């Protein structure tokens, strides 16, 4: 194996020599000898550095994004599989440390869609005008809350009351009512709001897409096997399946500047396997939900449905009430990091070529009744040992606690409908770049 790699490197090394001759300027132009560099095949740290350099050059010089992604994830080794929806205790702290994310409670003030610029529409001004004297957290004058509430209630009532359904399958309660309700709600709201948000008119709605991301963070010593004793980067892979996602052709605007520091990233001294996280070796995938050729290559909003085995009642039964919010936060942080980082890789950035503009996406995590909203800004992809040393940037995640959308559905009526949650959802859907 080493011999093969050596031979291949030697061949590539010969090609590379001709490139470095032009690049290296320290040699005087009339020198008869090639530049003196460390060996590329010796068992030495300098040789390893040269090989790493060479690999970085290859990825930088890749002809297309698909080629770059292929080279990036070419080498398969055992990696930790990170599940965004997990029952592990305090998983959100661990995930924040893996992804260098700062968590800021509450939604950013800039997440409110720029409604003030739009002229109020005549039909919707009347019911909205009654609300406009309220503080700025309320809807802008031209959003008809009554209409939106009726859309949401119609979707909810159809799925939970009016449609004749059999009993839910065992442990599949989420597929019976909350799943279809979420799909209906988002599709009808997106269609209703696409007049106000032209980005939604050009968007692509995916049902149960796949989102994958692979990255390195930190270092460890290989514990057993034929590679025992070597220092390896810690590899992670997220394979996520949101319930619904909206992808758009234009990027969402940045919330805060690229180098802002809004908090601290938790540092955890234990190995990731203590979380518990387990290692597996398989294909290193980077995928946002569709291939690179798709024009809708930026993310807008993801919708996640909490599965049955992680529902609230189970946590309450085993006296882990505080872990309910941890579950929502971990899901938001991990899923959004994977999505935004994959979007950044689709644009050609990677950990050696860090992002030059922040990537922003949103997510809503729900179990059918409780909704939690998350905003994520990816400021850096450089999480490997070499690149993280001089990197002061941190990724930022804003998130709320979970709040119920309604109390109960009884006899064709929705009791205790919460308008604020619907308003936050509508604001998320109306988010768009400033120029639109």
């Amino acid at each position: 194996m080493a011999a093969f790699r050596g031979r291949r490197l030697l061949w590539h090394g010969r090609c590379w020599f001709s490139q470095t001759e032009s690049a290296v300027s320290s040699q005087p132009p009339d020198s008869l000898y090639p530049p003196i560099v460390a060996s590329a095949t010796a068992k030495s740290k300098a040789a390893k550095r040269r090989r790493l350099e060479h690999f970085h050059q290859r990825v930088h010089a890749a002809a297309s994004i698909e080629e770059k992604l292929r080279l990036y994830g070419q080498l398969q080794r055992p990696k930790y599989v990170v599940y965004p929806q997990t029952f592990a205790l305090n998983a959100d702290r661990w995930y924040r440390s893996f992804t260098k994310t700062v968590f800021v409670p509450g939604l950013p003030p800039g997440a409110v869609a720029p409604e003030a610029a739009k002229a109020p529409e005549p039909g919707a001004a009347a019911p909205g005008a009654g609300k406009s004297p309220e503080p700025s957290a309320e809807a802008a004058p031209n959003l008809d809350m009554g209409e939106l509430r009726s859309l949401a209630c119609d979707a909810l009532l159809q799925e939970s009351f009016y449609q004749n359904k059999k009993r839910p399958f065992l442990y599949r309660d989420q597929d019976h009512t909350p799943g279809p309700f979420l799909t209906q709600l988002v599709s009808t709201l997106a269609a209703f709001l696409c007049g106000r948000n032209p980005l939604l008119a050009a968007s692509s709605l995916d049902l149960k897409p796949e989102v994958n991301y692979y990255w390195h963070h930190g270092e460890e010593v290989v514990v057993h096997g034929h590679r025992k004793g070597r220092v390896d980067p810690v590899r992670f892979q997220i394979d996520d399946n949101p319930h619904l996602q909206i992808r758009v052709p234009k990027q969402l605007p940045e919330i805060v500047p690229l180098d802002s520091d809004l908090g601290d990233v938790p540092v955890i001294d234990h190995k990731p396997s203590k979380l518990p996280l387990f290692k597996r070796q398989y294909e290193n995938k980077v995928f946002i939900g569709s291939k690179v050729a798709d024009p809708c290559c930026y993310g807008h909003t993801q919708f996640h449905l909490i599965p049955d085995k992680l529902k609230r009642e189970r946590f309450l039964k085993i006296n882990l009430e505080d872990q309910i919010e941890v579950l929502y936060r971990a899901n938001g942080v991990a899923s959004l990091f994977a999505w935004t980082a994959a979007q950044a890789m689709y644009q050609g950035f990677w950990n050696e070529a860090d992002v030059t503009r922040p990537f922003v996406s949103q997510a809503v995590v729900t179990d059918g009744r409780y909704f939690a909203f998350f905003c994520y800004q990816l400021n850096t992809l450089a999480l490997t040992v070499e690149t993280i040393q001089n990197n002061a940037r941190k990724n930022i995640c804003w998130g709320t606690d979970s709040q119920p959308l309604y109390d109960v559905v009884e006899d064709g009526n929705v009791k205790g409908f919460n308008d604020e949650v619907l308003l936050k959802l509508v604001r998320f859907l109306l988010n768009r770049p400033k120029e639109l």
Partner: protein
Amino acid sequence: MVAAPGPMALRRVGAAAARSRGIPTTPTRGILTTPTRGILTTPTRGILTRAAPPRPRGPLPRTPWTTRGPPPEELARVVERRPVREQVELDTITYAGRQHYVPGLARPRFPPWDRGWHDPWHSPGPRCEEMPLYKERGCYICHQGVRMLEGVRQAQWLTKTKLVEGLPPPVLGIVANPAHRLEEHEEGVKRAISHARFWDTTEVAPRREHYCPVLFEDLIHLCRLMSVKYPSLTRRMLARNYKIAATWERESILLQVRGLNGILMNSVSPIPPVASKEEILATEGHVLETFYPISPTIDLQEVNVYQELNHTGFRDGYPFSHPHTLFFLESANIRPKRFRPEQLRAKMLMFAFGNALAKAKVLYGNDPKVLEQPVVVQSIGTDGQLFQFMVFQLNTTDLVSSDGIKNLVWIDADQNLYEKAQCIPEVKKRVVTKPAGIYGFQPDTFKKFLALYLHGTV
């Protein structure tokens, strides 16, 4: 491009030609049909072949040259039904008493063991005749797995419907109306097709089970975005996994349509009737096509335990109470598991009729009568590439007799959205002969799709 005539079409052509020549038509099943002179060559996969002599299917006709001896009825009467051992009474002495096998003695047959008490986990359940819903008269049920032999003709007879080729004038008017600007969506449709067929998966090419629903969702998303221009389009709701139940009687045959079928789009207001009063009255003179000797209930499931139920699938008080369009997705990967276009059209007709009938019974009661306000239900079926469009109008619930006013259906069959979607470029001898992409895109198909979506609100 004319599709190759399938075996059904060949048989029908053969039977029709035989009928025109005056020869009494033999039943199409299991009987030799010689191909007519019109079909000397049968193109299969682009290669022209001569029609081979048809393989005999089923028992040969009883002619003096094919069989000898008396006809099978007589033979069956003469042949002894009891096994030989019983006739010779060889089994009277068994080794049951000896408690072990003894060569030469017969094998004993013991009575089945009786538990002595009723164990619900191990009881076989009541027999059909003892079930509470058992009825002497059988009922023929059409469910989502029923593939009718005679296709649309059979469905027409069962639902007392007259067929009109092509879409109805109001829908064609929406297609042709330049005010709707249906051309703007061409880019969006091409993107939707590419997304479904190429980009939506980490594999090289997605399978039909994956791309068919994705294409449907993308097209519906494009249609829903039209609610910017027509705000009343927001008063629509999609319902998946809903169950329909409709019962009717047709010339002393009890028929039912039951169960899961497709995705239903409901709307708040009904679709206005598509045909004029004159057309409805003109259907009185139309004669329904029969296909003797095939019974019209062929391929339907006959049951004796049933409930005569009429239910739309939704409770009373549902705001979106009018069924608008039914969508059928044939997304099985393997071709034999998918419905053929003719069978799909028949299924679409049956379920559109079932929905219309259930709605009419809710609105106007169970008495059979001619409806003053006909109920219109649309239906679209697809397998990811080929689209079938259908508009059904229920004019009467008086279906027992075959005379009188009939229902109307307009069918636009086999509309291709695109000819071919090449995932990987085709390379012959290291030269790219066909680059990847969508070939043969036809924008008219999506225009009709959108027109059917907009029908009723525009």
